[in-house]
Structures are given as C-alpha cells and as structure tokens.
C-alpha cells in the first residue's frame, strides 16, 4: 500500500509531504504481536493538528512505553479524501501507513465542536464502524478527550469511552488495563467495564438519558449497570512540575499554524472570566518551575532546531515569576537568535517593557483582548480590565514604536445593550487618539487599529452556561450598528460569522439527541465545518429538519437553574452552586477577584483531598 500511495496518489494532492509520517523526530517502531497500536487522531488538517500541544505530550508519553506505538492521523484534505475514496484505500496512521481499523485504539482530541463531522468522516475513511454499538471485537476502541469532552453527550453514539480531564497519568492506566484485557480473551464490553470505574473515564453505553415528552427537557440521567459511578470526576495532575513533558517533538516539513516550540508554563487560570470555559475546567492553576522550564526548553531547541519559543498558558502574564522567567530566557537565547513570544497576555498583567525586551529579538504586532466595549460589560463578564489599563498599555506601546494594534471583542454577551456595543467603537477611537497625542518622531509611521468581534457562544461549566445565544438577526443588527459607529479610517473592523457560532452553541450544550443529526450531516457531506469554504448552514438546517431536532432548543433558550443539564453528571471540581452565584453576580454587575488574591471557594479545594491552591 505504501509504495502505491507514494507513487500514484501523493503526486496528485496538494500537500503530499503531510501524508508520509517521515518527519524528524517521528517515532518508528518494529511492532510485534504484543505491541499496542494507538492512533492519535486530530480531526482537522495536518497544519492545524501539528500545532496542538496535547498531541505532542501524549505522543511522546505513549511512545516512551516499549510495547506501545503511538502514531498520528489527521483529517485528510478534500483532495486526498477524494483520492482515497476513488482508489478505495483506507485512511491510515502516518508512521506505519496501517489502515485505521487495524489499530487497538483511535484517540480523538476534541478541541472545537466544528470538528465533530471530521471525526465521523475519518472513521468512515478508516473503515471503522461509525456507531459504537455496531463495532465488532476486532475493531479499535474509539476514545475522545480534550475540552469538548466536558460535554461528551453529542458524540456518545460514536465514541466508546471519553477521558474527562488531563490524560497524562490516566492514559497509562488505561493501557495497563488493556494489556491484561488482551491476555484475557474478553469482549469489548469486558474492557469497557474494567475501566468504567476509573476516575475520569466515561463509557456512554453504560448510561441512559430519559426526556420529558412535553418539554423536551432531560428527566433523568442514570447508570444502566452496577459498578459504574453516577458522577464522573475529572482527572487533574497535581504536580505539573514533575509531569511528563516531551523533550523532542515531531518537526513538520510544511509550515504549521503555530510553527514554533510551544512551552506550557502553567495550567489553569484563576481570573474567573464568566464566559471562559477553559478558566473553569482547567482549575486549579499549577505552574512549572523556572529550572524545569529552562531545562526542557534547552532540550527542545537542541532536538528541533526551532528558532522561536512561545510561552503558552491561558494567561501568560499571570505566571507568578514572569519577569524573572523572561529575563532568564532572554539572557540565555538572545545571542542564539531564538525569539520568544508571549501569547495570551492580559492587558493588566502585561508590561510593555517586557514585550520590548522580547522585541529586541523579533518584532510582532500587539494583540489585546478587552473582550467587551464598556466598563459595565467588562464587569458583567468579570474581565477585570479597565479602560485605563488598556489606554495605558497602548500609549506605552505607541511610545515604544508599535503601530499595529489588534483588539478582540465579543458581542452578544448576556445583558448587552447598544451602548455596550458602541463602547467597542469608542475604545477603538480612544486607541487611535492615544497615537496622535504622541510626537511624530516618536511614533511609528504606520498606524493600524483592528477591531475584531466574535459572536459569543455560551459554554458548559461557565457561569453563562444557562444563557441563550443571540439570534443570527440580533448578531447582524449589532454588527451593523457597530460598523456604523466606526468613523476613523485608521480603524478597520473585522467580523465574520456564517452561522458557525450558532452551530457551536448547539453542539457545545447539546445532548444525546444530536447524535443522529451529526450522522445525518455527515451523510449529507458535511466536513471541515470550521473552514469557511466548506461550512454550509443550509445543509445543517436540512439535517436538523430531517431528524426532527430543533437547534434553537439548544442554542437560543435561556435555561433554568434547576434544569438537568446534559453535562451535569460530570464533576470538574468547580461547584454548580459557585457557577450559579457567579451568574447572579453578573446580573448585578458585581465582579469577583482574581483567585490568587482572594479565594471565592469555587469548590476545587474540596475536590481532591489534601489539595491546596496557591500553596
């Protein structure tokens, strides 16, 4: 098969090099009968998937095990898919080019809802049964994890089991159970039963949901068999500093979305922005120490030859010793032409001096995320950033020679009024004004302020999880209103929504009844829904209509606090009562402090015995 694909198929597709699995640091093993074959599947293109940190961690971790060979598989681009289908060839794992259906496990990472149809498409292309209930004993187990697994229900028809939370430790335990299972001659169900009790594992076929006929609301969610937990507790790594981190990563030949070393300096975030799912599900915050970071980065640079390191986290400026860390790294790598970048900087934690220190090596534009235009709205969402913070920051940036500033906002936030929308335009104008206050010879010659507004999508496990999304018409009206308020030609405004955020809102807070819709959409040819050129709202609406499911029920409806939510059976450590309290505070425009400064008892302290935050 390898030779045939290489000679006759790859020359015909756009990016042949991404289907070969022969990159520097790719792992090749000589498998025997005992080797566990694991395909780590990213349901989007190679270029997107190769930028994903979680895959790098699990790929390295699994391949450290002698008897496990973890390979990669991505959603083939449409030209490659057409070739595979016309030659009747199966989708394969990149390293060994083995057909997907011959693996022991296929593990999908769920990074965004709009990749769900790609999962179905990849299974089909890999000749794997789409529905978990149809899978034979010789077919792979389909696993799924990642942020979207915190509401696993829309995918429960297709996935054999979900991993809720951080998988670095759990995955090895699951592999251990599989080793014993392989010796036992058991059935699929036997293996699933053997792992169903492990913290962080959710096996959907052992549970049942019933609905109220009249209202359509969930009546009950309960286990179908004995010995499986009623609530699924997430997993988290207590000592991140000691947790596995790869010292080499696979080097893509083609340019990827984030073509650099991405180093995770800490996990979790205690800011408590009320729209942010990551800020809740990844609690508690845990840091890696500076010596660990230094040592690992050193190894990664040696093994890859990359010339850029990005210090990643949910809010990089909140690292407790950020200045010291940057000083250390800049000192170490300045002479070697290795650039540093700091994504995800909060406006209030960001020091322009810090950025300038980095800019000495490499220059980039400045991106800031005030998220909302008015102070009232920023307090509603608990962003905790003031206009003064923002203007101080842009002023200093302009003084230091920056000319290109991008500001990110959301529209359609709960309780939003037209004044809040107008605030976005006002903030853009004030930013421009700061620039013109400066002397000509100080400031950059080219000023460009970009305002970018995304449509708000309510997510599970956030204080806004009960809130309905704006209708598409409401979004449109608000966008047009905002546009009409932008007068300055130095300000450009970007907004794009073809209905994608509506679909996201449906699947983010959907339940098991969406399974048939996904299947229908897949049959109708939906895939790469995150890609503007392939997303079709019309097709999706047709799929909903055919299956008889109303998408508005999931996206637009305000839910009551006492409604059983599809994800209520998952315990992330942050209590529901806390989320309710936060929602109530948002209605009264009361903010909640950064948890490092004042603990608001979100629940994570009681979640694991002996755990103490900020210790």
């Amino acid at each position, binding site marked *: 098969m390898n030779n045939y694909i*290489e*000679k*006759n198929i*790859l*020359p*015909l597709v756009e990016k*042949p*090099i991404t289907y*070969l699995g*022969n*990159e*520097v640091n790719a792992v090749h093993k000589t498998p025997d009968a005992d080797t566990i074959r694991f395909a780590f599947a990213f349901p989007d293109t190679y270029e997107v998937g190769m930028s994903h940190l979680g895959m790098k961690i699990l790929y390295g971790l699994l391949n450290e095990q002698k008897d496990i060979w973890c390979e990669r598989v991505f959603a083939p681009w449409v030209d490659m898919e057409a070739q595979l289908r016309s030659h009747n060839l199966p989708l394969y794992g990149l390293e060994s080019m083995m057909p997907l259906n011959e693996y022991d496990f296929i593990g999908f990472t769920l990074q965004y809802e709009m990749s769900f149809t790609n999962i179905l498409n990849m299974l089909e292309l890999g000749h794997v049964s789409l529905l978990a209930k149809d899978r034979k004993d010789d077919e792979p187990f389909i696993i799924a994890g990642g942020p979207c697994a915190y509401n696993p229900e829309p995918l429960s028809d297709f996935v054999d089991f979900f991993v809720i939370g951080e998988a670095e430790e759990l995955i090895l335990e699951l592999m251990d159970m599989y080793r014993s299972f392989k010796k036992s001659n058991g059935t699929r169900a036997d293996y699933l039963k053997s792992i169903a009790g492990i913290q962080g594992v959710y096996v959907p076929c052992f549970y049942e949901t019933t609905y109220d006929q009249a209202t359509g609301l969930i009546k009950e969610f309960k286990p179908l068999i004995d010995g499986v937990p009623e609530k699924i507790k997430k997993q988290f790594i207590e000592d991140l500093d000691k947790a596995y981190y790869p010292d080499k990563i696979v*080097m893509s*030949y*083609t*340019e990827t979305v984030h073509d650099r070393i991405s180093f995770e300096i800490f996990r979790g975030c205690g800011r408590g922005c009320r729209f942010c799912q990551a800020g809740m599900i990844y609690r508690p915050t845990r840091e890696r120490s500076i010596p660990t970071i230094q040592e690992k980065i050193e190894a990664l*640079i*040696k*093994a*890859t*030859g*990359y*010339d850029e390191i990005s210090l990643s986290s949910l809010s990089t400026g909140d690292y407790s010793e950020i200045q010291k860390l940057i000083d250390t790294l800049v000192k170490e790598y300045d002479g070697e*032409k290795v650039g540093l970048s700091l994504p995800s900087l909060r406006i209030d934690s960001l020091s322009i001096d810090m950025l300038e220190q980095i800019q000495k090596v*490499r*220059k980039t534009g400045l991106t800031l995320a005030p998220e909302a235009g008015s102070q009232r709205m920023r307090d509603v969402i608990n962003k905790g950033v003031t206009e003064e913070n923002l203007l101080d920051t842009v002023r200093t940036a302009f003084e230091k020679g920056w000319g290109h500033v991008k500001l990110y906002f959301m529209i359609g936030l709960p309780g939003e009024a037209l004044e809040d929308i107008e605030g976005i335009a006002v903030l853009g104008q004030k930013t421009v004004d700061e620039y013109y206050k400066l002397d000509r010879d100080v400031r950059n010659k080219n000023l460009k302020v970009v305002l970018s507004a995304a449509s708000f999508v309510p997510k599970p496990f956030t204080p806004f999880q009960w809130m309905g999304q704006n209708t598409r018409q409401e979004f449109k009206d608000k966008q047009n209103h905002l546009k009409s308020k932008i007068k300055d030609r130095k300000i450009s405004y970007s907004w794009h929504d073809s209905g994608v955020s509506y679909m996201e809102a449906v699947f983010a807070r959907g339940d098991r009844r969406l399974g048939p819709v996904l299947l229908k959409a897949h049959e109708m040819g939906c895939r790469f829904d995150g890609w503007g050129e392939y997303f079709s709202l019309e097709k999706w609406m047709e799929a909903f209509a055919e299956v008889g499911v109303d998408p508005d029920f999931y996206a637009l409806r305000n839910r009551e606090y006492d409604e059983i939510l599809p994800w209520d059976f998952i315990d992330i450590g942050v209590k529901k009562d806390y989320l309710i309290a936060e929602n109530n505070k948002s209605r009264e425009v009361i903010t909640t402090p950064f948890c490092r400064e004042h603990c608001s008892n979100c629940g994570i302290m009681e979640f694991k015995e002996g755990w103490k935050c900020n210790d």
Partner: protein
Amino acid sequence: MIKMQYQFKRTNELRFLSHLDQQRLFQRAFRRSDMQVDYSLGFNPHPKMAFALAMSVGLTSDCEYGDVMLTDDISCEAFIERMNAVLPQGLEIVSARILEEGHPSLSASLLKSHYQLKVKLSDTVSKETLSKAFQTYLDYPEILMKKRNKKGKLIEKNIRPFIESILLNQEETTEEAATIEMFLNYIEQQCVKPELILSSINEQVNDLFIIDPTIQIHRKNLMLLED
C-alpha cells in the same frame, strides 16, 4: 568567517518537499548540528544561506548545491559528519568545500543539468519511434514555447538553445513507460523544465507521453561553470 559550499542529494523519501520546506529544514538542521551560522542584521535576522536551484516538488536528485556562511572555522569533514547526523533520511550531504572570497555565487555558476525522467506512454510505441521522435524534435532549428514573462504576459520563446540532447534510455524503457535522459543548458540563469519539454514533444511531434504529476523526474548531475 567561511563560506561552505556543499553538494547534497535528495532521494524518494523527501521528494515532496517544496523549496520553502527544504530551506526551513536546512535552517533547522544547522541549529540542531550546532553549526555557527552567520545571520543578517536587522529586526528579522536570517541565516546567510543559499541554494543553487529551487527544487520543485517531486524532484529527486543526486546533485544539488547549497552554501552557508559560518562564523567559525570548521573542516569540511566535520561539516559533513555533523550535518548528516541530523538530516532526515532522504537528504544527505555528499561533499563540501570552503570557497575563496569573491567566488561567483551558485546561481551565477549554473551550466547544465542532466535529468532522468520516467514517464508513462499514451500508447504502445517502439523504442525506435521514441528515438526518432526525439531526433525530429531536436532537428527543428527553432522550438517555440508559450511562456509568461515577469509581467505575466504570454510570450513565445525559442527553447531550442536550452536543450543539449534528449536520449532514450534503452535498457530501462518498457512498453508502458519510457526512461529518458535529458541534458539541459542554463542560459543567463534561466532554463526550461524537463516535463515541459515532454509536453512540447507531444505538441510538435507526436502525442507520446502522459503528462501528469506522476512523471518521475530525477536530476543525475548538475554541472557548474568551473567544473
């Protein structure tokens, strides 16, 4: 400071690299091998390195050239050894030499390429027919080909001077696929792509070859001015 010129080959495993991919690959390989590469000044420092030719996607080659400025004195043998230790399978440095200052740049030294092409035949044709077709083609005093100039305008260009010879590889040619040896000249750093010559033969002489991306093109030799 030294200018290291190296000859390398690219085999099947990495024939799908684009020129940009390959540049990036070498850049990173220099870092992994701890080579002390000289960088350009400015906000976006770039390593001082160049290739004789941009390799197209799909091309394999026994003979490619690159050069790189190094800030420390290193022997050619050490350069080859350290680079080959970090280069992936599919790329290999064959030889290297340190250039004197004032040596002409690689792109200015291009003389001639020897290509070997494997191409599927559109019909069963005898080896004699193929050889005859090449002869007929080469006997034309002028061969015009439509090309886009730098402004994007379509112009006709005589490509005959770029072609030194086209020969059929008798041993490797089968009924389905021909193996062809082509010797092509560089004139003022310009050349003609070998697969375009096959299309041109299809047009000017006889429809013999199936022109599609599965044509295999291999460079056996690249001759530089001084050699």
